[in-house]
């Protein structure tokens, strides 16, 4: 267990010093900041546009970062053989994978939180200075929370693929899965209308088996101030965490058997 913590903290420390993450960080900062500059302060729909823009940018960058870092980490460690001196120690490979997973979630979550904080600051500032804005709402926070849940789940899925295959195969697979996971509800309804039994079964299977990323997406609700109940938040959290744990269990089983050549 101690191994997991060491590996996780170590991963976060490394990421902070890594040039790639630093560049991403600056990029994310600029992107979010530029939303304020581009939104007119005197528009009646200010809050709506600002929320749509700000959360939209974060919602685009967050999964991109998750995917990019999550699918690259393990294959790179194997390729560069940095993994040798870690898994040769008295730690299980599962501990290594879970530790790396937690480290990566911390890294990406940190980036998302900083972007989120910047966005909230802008909302707060607008709320205080402009009559057209009512500042931060609960829905804003829920949308950011949903993005964090997405990071947790999407990183796990990325690790599952990365534990089993190469960087490029997993990046491609997880990207596809992410988009399908965002459309699974639409696919479900679409397939349900089909006359073919096969398509209906496949549609249902996709809906229940693949991660439903749409369920974690509260951005549109924030834009239209559409409230979310605590019960729904709880069930969504449960869904994301349960799915994550399941995916990680499968990933560690695969990883335990892998040859590092």
């Amino acid at each position, binding site marked *: 267990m101690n191994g997991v913590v060491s590996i996780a903290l170590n991963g976060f*420390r490394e990421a902070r010093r*890594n040039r790639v993450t630093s560049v991403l960080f600056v990029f994310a900062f600029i992107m979010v900041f530029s939303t304020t500059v581009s939104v007119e302060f005197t528009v009646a729909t200010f809050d709506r546009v600002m929320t749509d823009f700000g959360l939209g940018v974060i919602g685009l960058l967050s999964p991109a970062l998750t995917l990019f870092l999550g699918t690259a980490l393990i294959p790179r460690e194997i390729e560069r053989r940095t993994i040798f*001196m870690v898994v*040769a*120690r*008295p*730690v299980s490979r599962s501990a290594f994978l879970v530790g790396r997973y937690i480290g990566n979630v911390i890294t990406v979550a940190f980036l998302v939180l900083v972007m989120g904080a910047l966005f909230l600051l802008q909302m707060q500032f607008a709320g205080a200075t402009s009559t057209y804005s009512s500042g931060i709402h609960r829905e804003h926070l829920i949308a950011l929370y949903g993005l964090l849940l997405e990071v947790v789940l999407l990183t796990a899925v990325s690790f599952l693929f990365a534990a089993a295959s190469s960087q490029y195969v997993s990046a491609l697979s997880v990207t596809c899965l992410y988009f399908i996971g965002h459309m699974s509800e639409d696919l479900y309804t679409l397939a349900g209308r089909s006359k073919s039994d096969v398509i209906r079964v496949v549609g249902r299977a996709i809906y229940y088996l693949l991660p439903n990323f749409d369920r974690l997406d509260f951005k549109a609700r924030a834009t239209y101030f559409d409230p979310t109940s605590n019960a729904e938040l709880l069930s969504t959290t449960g869904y994301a965490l349960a799915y994550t744990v399941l995916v990680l269990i499968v990933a560690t089983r695969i990883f335990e*058997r892998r*040859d590092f050549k």
Partner: protein
Amino acid sequence: MVTAAVSTENLTKIYTLDLLKGRKRVVALDGLNLTIGEGHVMGVLGPNGAGKSTTIKLLLNLITPTSGKARLFGLDPSDAEARRNVGYLPENPSPYEYLTGEEFVRFAGSLSGLRGAELTARVRTVLEQVQMDRFTGVQIRRYSKGMTQRIALAQALVSSPRLLILDEPTSGLDVLGRQLIRDIILAEKKKGTSVLLCSHIIPDVEALAEDVAILIGGKLVRSGPVSEMLSDEGSRVELTFEGVDAQRLSPLNPEVIQDGRRLIVRTAAASSRALIEAAHQAEGRLISMQPIRNSLEDAFLEALRNSQNKVGSTIE
């Protein structure tokens, strides 16, 4: 029963390659039986691709055997406990480059269960041991190859292991660095640490190991105490002449190397007298004469001559 530090039983690793032409099997290691008793230093020699690193990776659970078994202190390497008392220095080690040397060694120690003051003390000790205590605050990506090698050795030593597995520990090191590694291994040997040492540098193995295994093409071709391998041939001498034409000596049929004006002649000690006289008559000058020590290198070269696979292993 005394448990050995390392034992293998018909240990075999076959890699499958998917080539355009179809599947090929590479027999990287073929039925290895090897035992290293506690407190022993075993040197493993072998040409490139002989299966040395493959053996080590099997012992550390980095790869799984195709068949056969490996044991560390009687336990299967896939059991994390089996690796608790092992320090491993990989070939061309690559530590996390954004960490400083000290952070990396600390990290390694903490993974072996060291904590607090004990961890700090051990980290300091091993960093001093590899003479890297001046560079502890520098990130590893700014290290030279030899400095990286030293840090990797420090991480292998940090948990005070009972078994050291070193894959070409002196590669990339300067003369002093090599000397340092030798001294460290000797000190570990004195403490009773078992060592598995793979190296291309035969004098190092000769100086440090009491047992040697020669691997060629994935097969163990010879193994035993170093002392036994050295006493195979009768005594020979090496003579160096100046100003002698090699042809004048050819009736005596010695092994001759022309080195500029010099002539280096290797022959059985019994025929040295005749050679010197022949050279004398040809008005040449004897510069030196020394006995050829029958070295481990000779034993290794001979084993190599007798096998078909000089480089790599069987590909089917």
